[in-house]
């Protein structure tokens, strides 16, 4: 089974590769996967705290071409969405967009999990910050 052209394009020209400062309160980091399983995905979102819109997203992925393509696509989709809209991204959307074969579906699952992990990290941080301001 060959990779689709979209997968190859994302693999050869990955979008939004990089990292944000993890300690930035507006940045949510999601790290999913394990090296033993062959895939580790780190996805970060930078949220505008006033509008709740994801202004920027970056990723780094250790894994196969599909994993790299899935996370690259995820960062493209995340930009400009609100946090809640981001949570609506389903792994099946990624599968359809990239025409992933059945054996590579776990890559899209990993990308969805990475999005959820990043958003939940951001929400935790935002929650903590509000509590701190409340007590102060």
């Amino acid at each position, binding site marked *: 089974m060959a990779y689709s052209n979209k997968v190859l394009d994302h693999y050869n020209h990955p979008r939004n*590769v990089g990292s944000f400062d993890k300690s930035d309160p507006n940045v949510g980091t999601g790290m999913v996967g*394990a*090296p033993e*399983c062959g895939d580790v995905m780190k996805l970060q979102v930078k949220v505008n705290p006033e509008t709740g819109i994801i202004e920027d997203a970056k990723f*780094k*992925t*250790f894994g196969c071409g599909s994993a790299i393509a899935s996370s690259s696509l995820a960062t493209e989709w995340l930009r400009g969405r609100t946090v809640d809209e981001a949570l609506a991204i389903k792994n099946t959307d990624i599968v359809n967009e990239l025409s992933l074969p059945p054996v590579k579906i*776990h890559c899209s699952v990993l990308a969805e999990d990475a999005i959820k992990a990043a958003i939940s990290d951001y929400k935790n941080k935002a929650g903590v910050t509000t509590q701190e301001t409340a007590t102060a």
Partner: protein
Amino acid sequence: MSVTPTGATARKAAAYLEVIRPADPKTIIPLCFNPTEYQISKANMFAEIPVPGLETPLIQYIRGDSEKLSLEALVDTSDTLDDVRVTYVKKLRELSPLYEMFKEGVDLTKVQWTAH
């Protein structure tokens, strides 16, 4: 052995080979060639012609073969003569969160991963 392909000069190969498949002469595969062992052979064929009355037979030259160069060539994954270790390993390292953690000094064996 002929034309030096682009990029090959940087590799400091001792020689350059071009492999041309007999079935498909348009496909030319350039190779960096760093020989550790190769063999040049040349053979001539002679025949003994027994002549009655002569103790030793006459030696007659039959034909000569052209020189042959034989060697073992390892064809690597690159067809552009770029060093695949540099081109791909570097690219994948830049993409890898693990390499980033490694550079930050994180002990990867002690990280709690969310297994899948």
